[in-house]
């Protein structure tokens, strides 16, 4: 991404090429557990000692069925939930010890991070930018860059409640990357989007990888994971069943397609019936 877009490149890896993994861990979780009490379901163990690591310039895909713990993992890393035990570090910062600093260093996007309907895209970006402590002149420059980069000029001053789903998604992306975070956490970012908007999102993820950002994202869409991910982690019942590149997972399971790999891993974990 060029300086014109308001975002600066971090590591010079080329999209489509063999990923050149930076040595530094951007996300590191060890023995992460999350237990909560649901008034209806009782005690729920959403994460059972999950280990996860993700490097700068890497796209890490978290795959799993509904209720596997994907969203909980991402929410813990984004400081939206506090871990019951275990440790998690984002860009070297412990999420439990300094959640505020973690929030400053991440861009988070999910289906439930809605836009303020009564603010315009420009106001939304200004609001977040000022709270990120970006100086007024610099903020203006970045916002203009993002409006151009995502083609949002036309509706920059219209209230978000009147925007289409695709337009909203663009504003959400701009909001998530406005402060140029070293880590992006995306929870099923293409869910509910049409083909064009999904394509724009995939293009965006690819561009951020090129800029050296660490991207951790969860998805249901296996083709997206195959296309984008440097490494894939398969999560099931709060545990990581396997982690590796697509080649590594193919070798480990003897299956050529990611869908089959996923089902084979779940079957081995004894949960095929649940996934069914």
């Amino acid at each position, binding site marked *: 991404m060029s300086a014109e877009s308001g975002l600066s490149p971090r590591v010079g890896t080329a999209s489509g090429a063999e990923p050149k993994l930076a040595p530094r861990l951007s996300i590191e979780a060890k023995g992460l557990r999350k237990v909560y009490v649901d008034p209806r379901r009782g005690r729920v163990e959403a994460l059972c000692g999950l280990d996860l690591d993700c490097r700068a310039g890497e796209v890490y895909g978290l795959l799993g069925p509904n209720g596997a713990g994907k969203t909980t993992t991402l929410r813990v890393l984004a400081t939206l939930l506090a871990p019951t035990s275990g440790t998690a570090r984002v860009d070297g910062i412990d999420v439990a010890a300094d959640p505020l600093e973690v929030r400053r260093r991440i861009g988070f996007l999910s289906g439930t991070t809605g836009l303020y*309907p009564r603010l315009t895209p420009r106001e939304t970006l200004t609001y977040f930018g000022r709270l990120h402590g970006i100086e007024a002149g610099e903020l203006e420059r970045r916002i203009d860059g993002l409006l151009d980069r995502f083609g949002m000029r036309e509706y920059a001053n219209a209230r978000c409640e009147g925007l289409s789903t695709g337009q909203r998604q663009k504003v959400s992306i701009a909001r998530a990357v406005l402060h140029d975070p070293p880590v992006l956490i995306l929870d099923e970012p293409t869910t509910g989007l049409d083909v064009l908007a999904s394509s724009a999102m995939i293009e965006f993820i690819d561009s951020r990888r090129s800029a050296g950002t660490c991207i951790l994202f969860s998805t249901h869409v296996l083709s997206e994971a195959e296309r984008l991910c440097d490494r894939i982690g398969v999560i099931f019942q709060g545990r990581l069943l396997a982690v590796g590149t697509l080649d590594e997972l193919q070798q480990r399971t003897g299956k050529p397609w990611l869908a089959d790999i996923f089902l084979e891993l779940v079957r081995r974990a004894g949960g095929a019936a649940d996934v069914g």
Partner: protein
Amino acid sequence: MRNAGSSPAAPAFLAATLRVAWKELATSFRDRQTTFYTLVLPIVLYPFLFWSMIQVSLFLEGRGEITEVAVGIAAPQPSIVPPGLGAGLEQPPGSSREGEDAAAEAARRELNRVHALPERAPLDEAGARAWVARGSASEAAEEPTIRPDAVVYVHEDEAGVRDGLRVLYDSTRTDSKIALSRITRRIPAYATELRASAADAADPGGGSLEPFVREPARNVAPQPAIGAYLLSTVLPVLFVLMTVMGAFFPAVDLTCGERERRTMETTLLLPIPRSAVHLGKILAVCAAALIATGLNLTALALSAEHLLRMLPAASKIEVQLPVRAMLQVAPLLLLFAFFVSSVLTGISSLARTFKEGQALLGPVQILFVLPGLAGSLPGVEITPFLASIPVVNVVLCFRNLLRGDLGLLEYAVAAASLAALSIAAIGMSLWLLSRESLHLSETGSAWTNLRGLLLSSKGSR
């Protein structure tokens, strides 16, 4: 969790809080419902309400004045009917008014007219009742008569001597009620006339029957004090009502409304302490409540002043807000607004949807309003004990400050009580708002959320 390693300094915290508050306030007033109830309604409601009241009152009064009523006189025997009773009932009360010209007096006499029907005697009371009810004194009406709107029935005792007058009327007929009202006002004047005639006839001289002239009572209270007293009876309780109503919609909108709009997660991702986010919301609710209250009171005062000017009896009353008293009471009002905003914001955060939040805050509103009404009851005087009771203390302190008789001790107790409660309410509200079991809850009712909250101890920063 340990303390945050990157806690911002106090000025940065305050700046972040104010930025959140400003954004929340601005977006609140972009909501049509909030704007309508907070800004438009007070500006339009009171003038419209007072204008309607005056119009309806004038209409009813005018309609009553131009209505001529027919009054019958009946008695068991003709001899006991007092002399000139019919003329007495037709005579409008009061003599010529000061400065009133002949034409005006004639016009006045054309109003409130009573037409006395020919006496019917002998007639028993049952017949008199039937006369009012059906227009004839018996089932088989032998003669067509005018149906009276009311009948003055003259009683006799066992010896056949006049005993008393009873007015018979029909409460289901408007004209009958008008007739009752006119008769009730005219009979005493007629009785006084009879007494004067009798006294004149028997006066022994020397003014013994009228030892002194009774002059009208005179109010020695200065006009501004009367105005302040009037204000003190209505303003404090209105302040409580309006603050609670003003905080209602913003509190719901900024908590469960945000959850319903699916922007709670976005807000929780703000790179500032969660306490700053939640405090900003409370500040926004408080500001909205104060704006709504200010507008309400201003609109009410202007409308009331206009109304008072239209009423001849009240035209001399000076109703002006005493600036000094308002400045003295301002800290208490501010603390109260904080208290209300914190409580409403905290409780509405239990709800999942806007509708559920409204239902939840309905009874909470009453919890504020009832003590406010209790504090405004006549005879309730402020004591150090009452000054410590929330809501009641605001009403009583406000009332006494307007009247200029509030002791320093009571003021200090009320201020301390409100400050402590505000801090406790803000603390409670921040605790509720920071529960992760609440702010990311997507299912369950307010009660389920509360139960989950009690079972879970996780907060977020």
